[in-house]
Protein backbone atom coordinates (compact mmCIF):
# COMPACT_ATOMS: atom_id res chain seq x y z
CA UNK A 1 0.00 0.00 0.00
CA UNK A 2 2.85 2.40 0.83
CA UNK A 3 4.54 1.99 -2.58
CA UNK A 4 1.20 2.29 -4.35
CA UNK A 5 0.46 5.54 -2.52
CA UNK A 6 3.81 7.01 -3.53
CA UNK A 7 3.31 5.93 -7.16
CA UNK A 8 -0.10 7.60 -7.17
CA UNK A 9 1.50 10.68 -5.60
CA UNK A 10 4.03 10.93 -8.46
CA UNK A 11 1.29 10.39 -11.03
CA UNK A 12 -0.77 13.19 -9.51
CA UNK A 13 2.29 15.46 -9.64
CA UNK A 14 2.40 14.83 -13.41
CA UNK A 15 -1.30 15.69 -13.63
CA UNK A 16 -0.49 18.99 -11.86
CA UNK A 17 2.06 19.75 -14.59
CA UNK A 18 -0.59 19.03 -17.24
CA UNK A 19 -3.06 21.30 -15.44
CA UNK A 20 -0.44 24.03 -15.48
CA UNK A 21 -0.12 23.66 -19.25
CA UNK A 22 -3.93 23.81 -19.57
CA UNK A 23 -4.05 26.99 -17.47
CA UNK A 24 -1.48 28.63 -19.77
CA UNK A 25 -3.34 27.57 -22.94
CA UNK A 26 -6.70 28.80 -21.66
CA UNK A 27 -5.10 31.90 -20.10
CA UNK A 28 -6.69 31.16 -16.75
CA UNK A 29 -6.43 33.19 -13.58
CA UNK A 30 -2.83 34.32 -12.90
CA UNK A 31 -3.00 33.74 -9.15
CA UNK A 32 -3.91 30.06 -9.64
CA UNK A 33 -1.12 29.63 -12.18
CA UNK A 34 1.45 31.10 -9.79
CA UNK A 35 0.34 28.91 -6.91
CA UNK A 36 0.26 25.78 -9.05
CA UNK A 37 3.72 26.55 -10.48
CA UNK A 38 5.15 26.95 -6.97
CA UNK A 39 3.40 23.70 -5.95
CA UNK A 40 4.85 21.77 -8.93
CA UNK A 41 8.37 23.21 -8.55
CA UNK A 42 8.29 22.81 -4.77
CA UNK A 43 7.32 19.16 -4.99
CA UNK A 44 9.93 18.51 -7.68
CA UNK A 45 12.58 20.16 -5.50
CA UNK A 46 11.57 18.07 -2.48
CA UNK A 47 11.62 14.90 -4.57
CA UNK A 48 15.10 15.65 -5.94
CA UNK A 49 16.52 16.65 -2.54
CA UNK A 50 15.09 13.68 -0.69
CA UNK A 51 18.06 11.27 -1.18
CA UNK A 52 20.58 13.95 -0.14
CA UNK A 53 18.58 14.95 2.90
CA UNK A 54 18.22 11.30 3.85
CA UNK A 55 22.00 10.89 3.56
CA UNK A 56 22.70 13.96 5.69
CA UNK A 57 20.08 12.90 8.23
CA UNK A 58 21.73 9.50 8.75
CA UNK A 59 25.21 10.96 9.39
CA UNK A 60 24.36 11.99 12.95
CA UNK A 61 21.59 10.02 14.62
CA UNK A 62 20.62 12.69 17.17
CA UNK A 63 20.77 15.79 15.00
CA UNK A 64 19.77 13.92 11.85
CA UNK A 65 16.18 13.34 12.87
CA UNK A 66 15.76 17.00 13.79
CA UNK A 67 17.38 18.04 10.53
CA UNK A 68 14.95 15.82 8.55
CA UNK A 69 11.79 17.44 9.92
CA UNK A 70 13.09 21.00 10.08
CA UNK A 71 14.32 21.00 6.48
CA UNK A 72 10.99 19.77 5.05
CA UNK A 73 9.08 22.33 7.11
CA UNK A 74 11.47 25.06 5.94
CA UNK A 75 11.00 24.15 2.27
CA UNK A 76 7.22 24.09 2.67
CA UNK A 77 7.15 27.51 4.32
CA UNK A 78 9.58 28.84 1.71
CA UNK A 79 7.13 27.76 -1.02
CA UNK A 80 4.27 29.42 0.86
CA UNK A 81 6.36 32.60 1.21
CA UNK A 82 7.08 32.56 -2.56
CA UNK A 83 3.35 32.51 -3.29
CA UNK A 84 2.79 35.36 -0.84
CA UNK A 85 5.71 37.41 -2.19
CA UNK A 86 4.68 37.11 -5.85
CA UNK A 87 1.10 38.08 -4.99
CA UNK A 88 2.29 41.04 -2.92
CA UNK A 89 4.82 42.20 -5.52
CA UNK A 90 2.21 42.25 -8.30
CA UNK A 91 -0.67 43.31 -6.07
CA UNK A 92 -2.68 40.22 -7.01
CA UNK A 93 -5.75 38.87 -5.32
CA UNK A 94 -5.29 35.29 -4.21
CA UNK A 95 -7.63 32.88 -5.97
CA UNK A 96 -9.35 29.98 -4.19
CA UNK A 97 -6.82 27.53 -5.62
CA UNK A 98 -3.91 29.71 -4.48
CA UNK A 99 -5.35 29.84 -0.96
CA UNK A 100 -5.96 26.09 -0.96
CA UNK A 101 -2.37 25.38 -2.01
CA UNK A 102 -1.11 27.70 0.74
CA UNK A 103 -3.26 25.80 3.24
CA UNK A 104 -1.75 22.55 1.95
CA UNK A 105 1.77 23.86 2.58
CA UNK A 106 0.73 25.03 6.04
CA UNK A 107 -0.81 21.63 6.78
CA UNK A 108 2.36 19.84 5.68
CA UNK A 109 4.42 22.08 7.97
CA UNK A 110 2.01 21.46 10.85
CA UNK A 111 2.33 17.75 10.20
CA UNK A 112 6.14 17.98 10.43
CA UNK A 113 5.75 19.78 13.77
CA UNK A 114 3.30 17.21 15.17
CA UNK A 115 5.27 14.23 13.94
CA UNK A 116 8.51 15.62 15.39
CA UNK A 117 6.83 16.23 18.74
CA UNK A 118 5.33 12.75 18.63
CA UNK A 119 8.52 10.95 17.67
CA UNK A 120 11.33 12.87 19.35
CA UNK A 121 9.92 15.04 22.12
CA UNK A 122 7.10 12.89 23.52
CA UNK A 123 8.56 9.60 22.24
CA UNK A 124 5.07 8.14 21.70
CA UNK A 125 5.51 7.32 17.99
CA UNK A 126 1.76 7.23 17.37
CA UNK A 127 1.73 9.26 14.18
CA UNK A 128 4.04 7.10 12.07
CA UNK A 129 1.39 5.79 9.64
CA UNK A 130 -0.66 8.98 9.82
CA UNK A 131 2.39 11.00 8.78
CA UNK A 132 3.05 8.86 5.67
CA UNK A 133 -0.48 8.77 4.38
CA UNK A 134 -1.53 12.33 5.24
CA UNK A 135 1.43 13.75 3.29
CA UNK A 136 0.42 11.71 0.23
CA UNK A 137 -3.28 12.58 0.69
CA UNK A 138 -2.53 16.31 0.80
CA UNK A 139 -0.39 16.04 -2.33
CA UNK A 140 -3.11 14.13 -4.14
CA UNK A 141 -5.94 16.43 -2.99
CA UNK A 142 -4.59 19.43 -4.92
CA UNK A 143 -5.49 17.80 -8.26
CA UNK A 144 -9.30 17.45 -7.88
CA UNK A 145 -9.57 20.95 -6.42
CA UNK A 146 -7.45 22.41 -9.24
CA UNK A 147 -9.56 20.59 -11.86
CA UNK A 148 -12.79 21.80 -10.23
CA UNK A 149 -11.78 25.47 -10.13
CA UNK A 150 -10.20 25.40 -13.59
CA UNK A 151 -13.37 23.91 -15.11
CA UNK A 152 -15.40 26.66 -13.37
CA UNK A 153 -13.03 29.31 -14.75
CA UNK A 154 -13.22 27.89 -18.28
CA UNK A 155 -17.05 27.83 -18.09
CA UNK A 156 -17.09 31.44 -16.88
CA UNK A 157 -14.75 32.47 -19.71
CA UNK A 158 -16.99 30.75 -22.26
CA UNK A 159 -20.07 32.52 -20.87
CA UNK A 160 -18.25 35.82 -21.16
CA UNK A 161 -17.31 35.09 -24.79
CA UNK A 162 -20.93 34.09 -25.60
CA UNK A 163 -22.32 37.31 -24.10
Amino acid at each position, binding site marked *: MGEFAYTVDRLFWLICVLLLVVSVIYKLDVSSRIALTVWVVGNLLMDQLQPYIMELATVNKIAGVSFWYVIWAAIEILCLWCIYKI*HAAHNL*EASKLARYIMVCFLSL*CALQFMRYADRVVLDTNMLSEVYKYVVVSINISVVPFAIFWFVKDIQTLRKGVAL
Partner: protein
Amino acid sequence: MIEFLSLLVLAVLLLSGLFWYKKTCRHLTVKEIEQRVSQQMEQRAHKLCMQAFDVQRTSEAEERSKLDEQFQDDLHLYVEDFQAEVAESLQQNKVQDIQSYGFIRLTK
Protein backbone atom coordinates in the same frame (compact mmCIF):
# COMPACT_ATOMS: atom_id res chain seq x y z
CA MET B 1 18.67 20.76 23.77
CA ILE B 2 18.64 20.03 20.03
CA GLU B 3 15.11 18.66 20.34
CA PHE B 4 13.87 21.79 22.07
CA LEU B 5 15.54 24.10 19.56
CA SER B 6 14.20 22.10 16.63
CA LEU B 7 10.71 22.20 18.06
CA LEU B 8 11.05 25.94 18.49
CA VAL B 9 12.23 26.37 14.89
CA LEU B 10 9.30 24.27 13.65
CA ALA B 11 6.87 26.38 15.69
CA VAL B 12 8.37 29.60 14.34
CA LEU B 13 8.14 28.28 10.78
CA LEU B 14 4.50 27.32 11.28
CA LEU B 15 3.58 30.71 12.76
CA SER B 16 5.41 32.54 9.96
CA GLY B 17 3.51 30.49 7.43
CA LEU B 18 0.22 31.40 9.09
CA PHE B 19 1.19 35.07 9.09
CA TRP B 20 2.01 35.13 5.37
CA TYR B 21 -1.14 33.18 4.54
CA LYS B 22 -3.29 35.72 6.39
CA LYS B 23 -1.52 38.59 4.64
CA THR B 24 -2.13 37.00 1.24
CA CYS B 25 -5.82 36.43 1.88
CA ARG B 26 -6.56 39.94 3.10
CA HIS B 27 -6.69 41.39 -0.46
CA LEU B 28 -9.48 39.10 -1.52
CA THR B 29 -12.13 40.04 0.96
CA VAL B 30 -13.87 42.97 -0.80
CA LYS B 31 -14.16 41.22 -4.16
CA GLU B 32 -15.30 37.99 -2.50
CA ILE B 33 -18.02 39.82 -0.60
CA GLU B 34 -19.18 41.61 -3.76
CA GLN B 35 -19.39 38.28 -5.60
CA ARG B 36 -21.31 36.68 -2.75
CA VAL B 37 -23.82 39.57 -2.56
CA SER B 38 -24.30 39.69 -6.35
CA GLN B 39 -25.02 35.93 -6.31
CA GLN B 40 -27.63 36.48 -3.60
CA MET B 41 -29.23 39.30 -5.61
CA GLU B 42 -29.13 37.42 -8.91
CA GLN B 43 -32.91 37.08 -9.11
CA ARG B 44 -33.44 40.83 -8.74
CA ALA B 45 -30.75 41.50 -11.34
CA HIS B 46 -32.51 39.13 -13.72
CA LYS B 47 -35.84 40.87 -13.08
CA LEU B 48 -34.20 44.20 -13.92
CA CYS B 49 -32.87 42.76 -17.19
CA MET B 50 -36.41 41.63 -18.10
CA GLN B 51 -37.79 45.06 -17.21
CA ALA B 52 -35.20 46.74 -19.47
CA PHE B 53 -36.15 44.31 -22.22
CA ASP B 54 -39.85 45.20 -21.79
CA VAL B 55 -39.03 48.90 -22.05
CA GLN B 56 -37.18 48.24 -25.30
CA ARG B 57 -40.05 46.21 -26.73
CA THR B 58 -42.85 48.67 -25.88
CA SER B 59 -43.72 50.84 -28.87
CA GLU B 60 -46.34 53.10 -27.24
CA ALA B 61 -44.59 56.24 -25.95
CA GLU B 62 -46.66 56.81 -22.77
CA GLU B 63 -46.47 53.21 -21.62
CA ARG B 64 -42.77 53.09 -22.50
CA SER B 65 -42.12 56.20 -20.42
CA LYS B 66 -43.96 54.69 -17.43
CA LEU B 67 -42.07 51.39 -17.68
CA ASP B 68 -38.76 53.23 -18.04
CA GLU B 69 -39.46 55.30 -14.92
CA GLN B 70 -40.30 52.15 -12.98
CA PHE B 71 -37.13 50.49 -14.29
CA GLN B 72 -34.97 53.48 -13.24
CA ASP B 73 -36.49 53.42 -9.72
CA ASP B 74 -35.93 49.67 -9.36
CA LEU B 75 -32.39 49.99 -10.70
CA HIS B 76 -31.44 52.69 -8.18
CA LEU B 77 -33.01 50.66 -5.41
CA TYR B 78 -31.03 47.59 -6.52
CA VAL B 79 -27.72 49.49 -6.53
CA GLU B 80 -28.44 51.02 -3.10
CA ASP B 81 -29.41 47.66 -1.61
CA PHE B 82 -26.32 46.03 -3.16
CA GLN B 83 -24.01 48.66 -1.68
CA ALA B 84 -25.75 48.44 1.70
CA GLU B 85 -25.37 44.63 1.77
CA VAL B 86 -21.69 44.79 0.82
CA ALA B 87 -21.00 47.57 3.35
CA GLU B 88 -22.73 45.59 6.10
CA SER B 89 -20.76 42.48 5.19
CA LEU B 90 -17.48 44.44 5.20
CA GLN B 91 -18.26 45.69 8.70
CA GLN B 92 -19.30 42.25 9.94
CA ASN B 93 -16.11 40.71 8.58
CA LYS B 94 -14.06 43.55 10.11
CA VAL B 95 -12.32 44.31 6.83
CA GLN B 96 -9.58 46.83 7.51
CA ASP B 97 -8.30 49.74 5.42
CA ILE B 98 -11.71 50.57 3.93
CA GLN B 99 -13.36 53.79 5.09
CA SER B 100 -16.31 53.75 2.71
CA TYR B 101 -18.04 51.66 0.09
CA GLY B 102 -20.14 53.34 -2.60
CA PHE B 103 -21.95 56.14 -0.81
CA ILE B 104 -21.86 54.38 2.54
CA ARG B 105 -19.35 55.42 5.13
CA LEU B 106 -18.01 52.51 7.19
CA THR B 107 -17.68 53.46 10.83
CA LYS B 108 -15.72 51.48 13.44
